[in-house]
């Protein structure tokens, strides 16, 4: 089954991004497919390559990048939301790409399920 994922909150401030990540890992472990993870609202802040969490805490951004690298998951950041919040190619973490809201709608159309994580 194909899953689409929508992440609406930034890293650390809310648990939404953590839950979405752990959900994605379980989707893959169950043998399902992730059509796309779409980052909207403050969710775009998950894509900042400049984050440096304390050593004893999880690295949320690096985790997403690794998911893209190891499983080819498509991580898409909404361009309009990203511009409002200062996420651009110059501070974009590996594995993410910036694109339009149409990519979210497409995920809704193409995926069998769309799950929203937010506040």
């Amino acid at each position, binding site marked *: 089954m194909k899953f689409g994922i*929508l992440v*609406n909150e930034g890293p650390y401030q809310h648990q939404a991004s953590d839950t979405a990540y752990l959900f994605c890992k379980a989707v893959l472990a169950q043998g399902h497919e992730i059509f796309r993870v779409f980052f*909207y*609202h403050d969710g775009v802040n998950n894509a900042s390559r400049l984050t440096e969490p304390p050593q004893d805490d999880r690295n949320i951004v690096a985790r997403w990048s690794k998911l893209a690298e190891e499983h080819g998951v498509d991580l898409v950041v909404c361009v*309009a*939301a990203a511009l409002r919040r200062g996420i651009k190619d110059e501070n974009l973490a590996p594995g993410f790409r910036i694109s*339009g*809201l*149409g990519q*979210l*709608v*497409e995920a*809704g*159309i193409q995926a069998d399920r*769309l799950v*929203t994580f*937010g506040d």
Partner: protein
Amino acid sequence: MSEEPGIKKFMFVNRKAPYGTVYALEALEVVLITAAFDQDVSLAFLDDGVFQLRKGQQTKGIETKNFSPTYRALEGYDIEKLYVEKEALAARGLTEDDLLVDVTVLDRKALGVLMDEQDVILSF
């Protein structure tokens, strides 16, 4: 699935007041794009979401864009299914006359049934 092949029923569930947070504004941006994909789009306004449709919003004092006129423009994008929760209006002392656009007022149970019929639900 909707009756036409390739068309899905998308419902946007709005439960938050405008301006206090950005969700209402950014939800509208998704709605407009979804219509451009020729999907079957409906909007549901529940709880504080009904405040999004309130007439007379004047945002000059908070120096923020007033995006409420966009709800009036939805018709031009063939988005005509706007459902508003009856109990939410009543609790907030509002009637249909207080709203910017024509809507269908439904009670919670009817909204719940409608939700069950969707293919995709996006909540903001």
